[in-house]
């Protein structure tokens, strides 16, 4: 694992505070079909620095996906505003790509796995990454191999196992090389080994390309391992409970990290918050 980029270092050390996401009192109330209003997320104030790796944890239904959807411009806040860079979010920002929680429904079922990745490449952020079809196919194959799906280029998503579909969705988002990567429980359907491989893959790409990552997970250890900040949300759309800084330098290593006493202390703290034993 290489060291962090400058921007990330800056974000960590508090050098140049360049916000990429600014959330000012943004909250969301849904109007359900039965006529009731459901609190999705209480108004939240928050800034996230460019190049940061931030995780969101909290109980099921606490508003993690809602927060991501607000940032992604897929949902209009019922109060407050959100800015990406200096621009107010009023629709999906150009720089962000989203891996949906229901990954299986977000793949294009009429395209092969390879063509789904092609979709990511062609609709990437910034310049086209391949100049010829052959080069593009090579790139696709690389992306597939990175997530352990080397032999599935010509299969249809409906013919893959759940975890394989999830990895296609991840590979597709990575192929787009966004500035801001929104991941909603992206590893929920993969095994332990794939999970740690993918964790390190995301970390590597984050560092190599200096992206900003917003990461939702139920696995607190994973959140701590990956991120610089872990934001704990309160139950039932209650807003931010605690904003925990994970002050452990990168590179982190799967085994060593889990024995680091700072990690163990943070783990106890965050677990306590989520499990409500604090």
């Amino acid at each position, binding site marked *: 694992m290489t060291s962090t980029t400058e921007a990330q270092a800056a974000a960590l050390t508090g050098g140049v505070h360049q916000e990429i996401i600014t959330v000012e009192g943004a909250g969301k*109330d849904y*109007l359900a079909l039965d006529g009731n209003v459901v609190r999705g997320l209480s108004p939240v104030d928050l800034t996230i620095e460019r190049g940061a790796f931030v995780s969101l944890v909290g109980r099921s239904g606490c508003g993690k996906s809602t927060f991501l959807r607000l940032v992604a411009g897929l949902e*209009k806040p*019922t109060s407050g505003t959100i800015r990406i860079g200096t621009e107010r979010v009023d629709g999906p920002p150009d720089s962000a790509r989203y891996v949906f929680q229901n990954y299986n429904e977000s793949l294009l079922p009429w395209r092969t796995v390879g063509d789904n990745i092609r979709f990511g490449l062609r609709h990437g952020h910034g310049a086209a990454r391949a100049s010829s079809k052959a080069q593009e196919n090579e790139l696709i194959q690389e992306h597939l191999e990175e997530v352990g799906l080397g032999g599935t280029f010509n299969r249809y998503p409906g013919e893959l196992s759940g975890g394989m579909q999830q990895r296609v969705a991840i590979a597709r988002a990575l192929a787009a090389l966004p500035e801001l990567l929104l991941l909603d429980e992206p590893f929920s359907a993969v095994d332990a080994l794939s999970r740690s491989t993918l964790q390190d893959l995301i970390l590597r790409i984050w560092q190599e390309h200096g992206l900003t990552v917003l990461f939702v997970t139920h696995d607190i250890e994973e959140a701590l391992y990956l991120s610089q900040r872990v934001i704990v949300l309160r139950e039932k759309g209650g807003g931010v409970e605690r904003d925990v800084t994970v002050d452990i330098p990168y590179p982190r290593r799967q085994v060593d990290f889990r024995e680091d006493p700072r990690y163990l202390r943070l783990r106890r703290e965050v677990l306590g918050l989520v499990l409500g034993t604090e």
Partner: protein
Amino acid sequence: MPDTIVTGTEAREAERKPPASGIRPVGRARRNARRYFRSRVSGWTLVALVVVLWELYSNVDYDPTISSPSRIAETWWGEATTGDLLNQLTITLRTMAEALALAVPLGVGIGFLMGRSQVIWGLLEPLVEILRLTPATAILPIYILFLGLGDQMKVAVFLTGGIFPMIINSYAGARGVSKILSETAQTFRLSWLQTQREIALPFAMPYILVGMRQSLGMSLVLAVVIGMLAGNDGIGYYLMFAQQNFNLRQLLAGVLTVAFVGYVFNAVFLLLERRVTRWRRSQTGAA
């Protein structure tokens, strides 16, 4: 442990704000209807524009075949108040209602069953397709031979003409049931009938409704055509009479009446459709 339910002013406030994609306030038929008609204003403006241009054109260069909107309106008013138009329309609508009362269960039933059972599909497909592709008006003499001149014959022609959109759409809907919902039905050991009622039918409903709306339109058109070919009353007869007497203004007044009645039916049906498939609003990205 209920979720946070906000009520009172807060709820009302939330509603006033532009709803997020896919989620809209519901259950307020009045407001619904308002929005419903509001959004078509542009289209009706377009129609009005066409009418105005037509009127202007007919002042410059009058053609008796297309007449002019004002004269047609005048004729329409005369026909509606002192003439026979509305009576004949009522008769046609009655026949149509009879035909639809038969065609809807039959069409939806056949199409749906064909979509749900390979055996029924195999058995009926050739017959259904051959009938679908046989022009009813060409073999009208045969209908008349067997069914006479009364409502029976008319209903039969409606059936063979207007039932197919329902069959085809219901079929497509019934066949499209997602694999995992079928499997859910299987693992919960639903009987064949239960599977149809609880899974396939609700799933196919949006398709079925599209088919029904098409059939509604087609049966109205057919009602006119049949009436013109073999009618003793009804709007088709009225139109044929106008045609035979070369009274084109009367003809146009009649045709526009039919179209307008059809439009109202269709709009009502669309409102119903929205109610029945309310749940879809959180599923589709339709604006």
